[in-house]
């Protein structure tokens, strides 16, 4: 049982999740993002209400977290040193579609360094590695669904797709809610980045409002003066049906 549920003595929810809006999410086949062409299923998916296999999901305790897991400036740095780049705090809430905070959600994030270079053997961009920056971090939301971490703002970088495609600066997020059906990976963009509307991966999303929802706002009120700017990024997971009535048999 999650610590948050334990503290409040709440009964865990067992309702199924709201159906995903597949017109809001990117479609599988988006040929302007070339890699999707041969990796996109072409047949209709099998649509079903959740079973217990999707309603349940793994839960992670705070005991898995190390002290520096949410500090990308320090978690790979040599003692006394720190990552190079514009220092930022990213904070926000994990909510579900009902507007309820999601406590105990595991968030894992990864990103390029301030020059736009990933620490990965398949990465070939000429921008240098930062010896003090690994590029990964994780945290677990508190009782209200709040989270925060510290990092350097990643740089934009070129990638092989079109002849001159650049990714806007972004941070990847992986999120576990309370059920495996809520499993989600997405990306956070930064307010004011002119590369956002040009990016083929961003443009896999059809609705501009869905792109705005992935764009973090600069929050000068949360900024630490003379230290770090702050960006607010809320994440919304699938909502959950209330179990008003327990119907054991339905249509059978």
């Amino acid at each position, binding site marked *: 049982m999650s610590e948050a549920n334990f503290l409040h003595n709440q009964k865990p929810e*067992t309702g*199924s999740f709201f159906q*995903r*809006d597949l017109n*809001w*999410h*990117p479609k*599988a086949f988006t040929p302007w*993002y070339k890699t999707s062409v*041969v*990796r*996109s*299923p*072409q047949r209709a*998916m*099998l*649509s*079903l209400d959740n*079973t*217990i*296999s*999707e309603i*349940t*999901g793994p839960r992670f305790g705070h005991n*898995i977290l*190390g002290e520096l*897991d949410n500090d990308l400036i320090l978690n*790979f740095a040599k003692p006394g040193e720190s990552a190079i780049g514009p220092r930022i705090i990213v904070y926000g809430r994990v909510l*579900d*579609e*009902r*507007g309820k905070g999601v406590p105990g959600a595991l968030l894992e994030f990864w990103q390029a360094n301030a020059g736009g270079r*990933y620490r*990965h*053997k398949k*990465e070939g961009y000429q921008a240098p590695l930062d010896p003090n920056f690994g590029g*990964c971090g*994780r945290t677990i939301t508190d009782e209200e669904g709040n989270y925060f971490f510290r990092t350097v703002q990643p740089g934009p970088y070129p990638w092989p797709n079109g002849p001159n495609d650049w990714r806007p600066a972004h941070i*990847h997020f*992986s999120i576990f809610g*309370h059920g*495996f*059906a809520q*499993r*989600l*990976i*997405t*990306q956070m963009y930064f307010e004011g980045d002119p590369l956002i509307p040009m990016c083929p*991966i*961003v443009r*896999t*999303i059809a609705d501009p409002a869905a*792109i705005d929802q*992935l764009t973090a706002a600069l929050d000068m009120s949360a900024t630490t003066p003379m230290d770090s700017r702050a960006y607010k990024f809320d994440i*919304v*997971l699938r*909502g959950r049906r209330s179990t008003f009535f327990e119907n*054991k*048999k339905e*249509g059978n």
Partner: protein
Amino acid sequence: MVQSLNRLKESASQTAGPYVHIGLTPNFAEIGGVYPEDLGTSMVNDKTKGERITVTGRVIDGTGTPLRDALLEIWQADADGLYNSPSEMRGAADPNFTGWGRCPTHMDTGVFTFHTVKPGRVPFPDGRMMAPHITFWVVARGINLGLQTRMYFGDEEKANKEDPILTRVEHQVRVPTLIAKREGDTYSFDIHLQGEKETIFFDI
């Protein structure tokens, strides 16, 4: 005008990209010293109840090429058919079994491997028992929304024949895409993203 339902929209998915390993399996990506071990690497320990099995396979694109940059997660019940989750209200699952595993596909061969136990049966919402199965979630560069599917067991022919989901599939000719073949203690399960053998993916 009517009242607003005051619902939020789910955050839209974006691809996991080519560097998903940095975030989810940093030790595999040779980023050492940040986490003691990659999450989801081991699902079982010496005390786990149930029949030990290995589940292995590849994720194959529309050209027949295995993906060497995919990442898979699986979620399953324990040997008695209980999920290790706070939302499991039917009883307490085996504390020595997480039920959840994560594995990147091999960077050269594209093979994934999970060491787990064979799951027990769990009920469909109407009370009928489903055949034993493992839920799969696949992400990779070029996959815009994580793909969910299930693996059923080739040696559970009787249970598969009465499974409420497998029997609902309109094109029964596609059902074998969800069924893993057993050889010794190993089940082989290839996931085909496209083509003749395209795996049935779940909108669930």
